[in-house]
């Protein structure tokens, strides 16, 4: 700890930190501060003057049926997307870890989706899942109304879950594969010598030892599903049909920028921020400490 490098003069250190500090202050603390201020005041839609209202903004959103519906939708989305993204990633990582034929290629290919920006992915999925073109048009021809996310809320929710998961499969895959490869090969071999087949070894040895990675990813996936889903929702469904895909983060945007209710939107972002912070604390305080084997 003590042999970290020191700068002889204070100003040089400050100078080197300054660019990063400016970025963080400008794009994180300033907006957060503004949101905090707005959350406790009544902001005028066209600017100019504000009035302190205490917790009124919060009591308004907590008594709003539409807000709780968005919370519920966010939970459905978060759990669905995390389960799908983690499940698929885990299966792929287990395949890759067994070095099945061609694994080197799809290991690389699987990492790419995470590099694609959410709106770009969303545009692609909007075309793939369009009810009036492609595969689904043919299916709808045979079974009318089988698939129509433009009018059916459940279909729309399924669509954003799949589109969002597609990107996160890549992210989870990297962590699962790293976790699997950190398990000493000899443990799996010992399992083989003990008579366990491939699936039995996965269940009894690899998956239990993957628990720390699993919980880490669960928290990250849930957290990101609350805040990172905006791009997908905005491009594919714009929160519709009839608010069926208006998640918490999309409702903040919609109330704030479309409804010009700055104060309500600010209060909602503070709630979302507290939620994300809580999950992060859980991550650091409990999960990282409890679940690890040596």
């Amino acid at each position, binding site marked *: 700890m003590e042999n970290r490098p020191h700068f002889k003069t204070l100003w040089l250190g400050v100078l080197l930190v300054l660019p990063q500090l400016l970025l963080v202050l400008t794009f994180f603390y300033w907006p957060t501060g503004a949101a905090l201020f707005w959350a406790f005041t009544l902001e005028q839609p066209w600017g100019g003057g504000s009035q302190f209202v205490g917790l009124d903004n919060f009591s308004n959103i907590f008594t709003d049926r539409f807000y709780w519906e968005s919370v519920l939708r966010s939970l459905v989305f978060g759990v669905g997307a995390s389960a799908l993204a983690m499940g698929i990633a885990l299966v792929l990582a287990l395949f890759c870890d067994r070095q099945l034929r061609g694994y080197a290629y799809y290991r690389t290919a699987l990492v790419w989706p995470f590099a694609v920006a959410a709106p770009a992915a969303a545009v692609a999925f909007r075309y793939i899942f369009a009810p009036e073109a492609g595969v689904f048009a043919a299916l709808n021809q045979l079974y009318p109304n089988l698939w129509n996310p433009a009018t059916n809320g459940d279909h729309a929710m399924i669509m954003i879950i799949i589109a969002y998961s597609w990107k996160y499969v890549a992210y989870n895959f990297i962590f699962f594969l790293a976790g699997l490869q950190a398990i*000493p090969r*000899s*443990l799996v*071999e*010992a*399992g*083989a*010598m*003990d*008579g*366990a*087949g491939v699936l*039995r070894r996965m269940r*009894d*040895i690899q998956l*239990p*030892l993957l*628990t720390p990675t699993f919980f880490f990813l669960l928290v990250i996936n849930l957290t990101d599903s609350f805040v990172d889903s905006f791009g997908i929702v905005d491009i594919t469904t714009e929160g519709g049909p009839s608010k069926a895909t208006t998640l918490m983060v999309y409702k903040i945007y919609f109330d704030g920028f479309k409804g010009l209710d700055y104060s309500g939107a600010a209060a909602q972002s503070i709630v979302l921020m507290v939620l994300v912070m809580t999950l992060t604390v859980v991550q650091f305080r409990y999960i990282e400490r409890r679940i690890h*084997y*040596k």
Partner: protein
Amino acid sequence: MAEIAIRQVRKSYGRTEVVHGVDLDIGNGEFVVILGPSGCGKSTLLRMIAGLEDITAGEIAIDGARVNEREPRERGCAMVFQNYALYPHMNVADNIGYALKVAGVAKAERARRVAVVAATVGLDGFLDRRPGQLSGGQRQRVAMARAMIREPKVFLFDEPLSNLDAKLRVQMRIEIRRLHRRLATTSVFVTHDQVEAMTLADRMVVMNAGHIEQIGAPAEIYHRPATRFVASFIGMPPMNLLPARATAPGVVALASGARLMLPPGWVMTGGDVEVGIRPEDVLVDAESGDGNRLPFTVEFIEELGAGRLAHGTLEGIDFIVQLPAGASMTAGETHVLTLGSNALHLFDAGTSRRCRFDAASPMAGVMQVPVVGLEHSVQASSA
């Protein structure tokens, strides 16, 4: 219990062949130690027996049945790994009993057998602990117990003692020996430690660079190393090797011109040889007696407690002598060493193989090569 037959077994990784056609028969109940430097292919060979590595060519049979295509679990082998490979998320009882659990043995029966095996390796009080809470020696015992519980046909040990400290290693060595005496299960033990190999083995297999150099009882390998490699690998410190050239029947000359007399019986097939003698077989300042007497210049002395090693040069060649307790020798001195004729080993410089020794042969003492500088009145150079 089982016999293992290894026939012309080869292993390649891509284009690199690491095991070049190994033949080995292991008898029922035998304890065979495969010894060799790191990278000689000994672990690979063991893992091929276990089924953890594919066999590139050749055949391995256990109890007469070819096992090349069988899964590890179908071969009846149990293995103790170098790093123990204990399941960190299971307690000791679950670690030991895992094989039974996989085999579908009922819980009560499993607990009973785990208790029995744990008692034999002295782990009675530790069944609820996790591997992380055990010392190195205890982990080693868990690994042993886990191998024993299946009552396998063959035990495979992959350098199981190399992670232990010196004292514990000796203790576990004795326990393994004791265990084998009691269970008499066919065992293959891989190590790079010659003391481990000598003490544990019924039969030793010395491997080098993917080949078997020699197979034999420990004493035989020590006293009659079949190749130059075995001679230099076995023994602490290693055997002294002096390059020499045959000059007359029963006589070789070192590069310095000094001559060594050999007992009759060595059959040499080439002119260039290497003469070997173990540091413990050399006599220091002997009054008389038969043998070759040569001057030795001492460079430094190594204290070992039970004895001392003198490092120096003999006729310009690096040489080590083991001094008996009480012998006085200090750096810078010159002493006369006696290399007893019967203590000498002779290796062909071309093939690196031990020269044949056949006292009864009509060719005994006669070289089958043109002799350089025939001299009959042979005398070792004196000090």
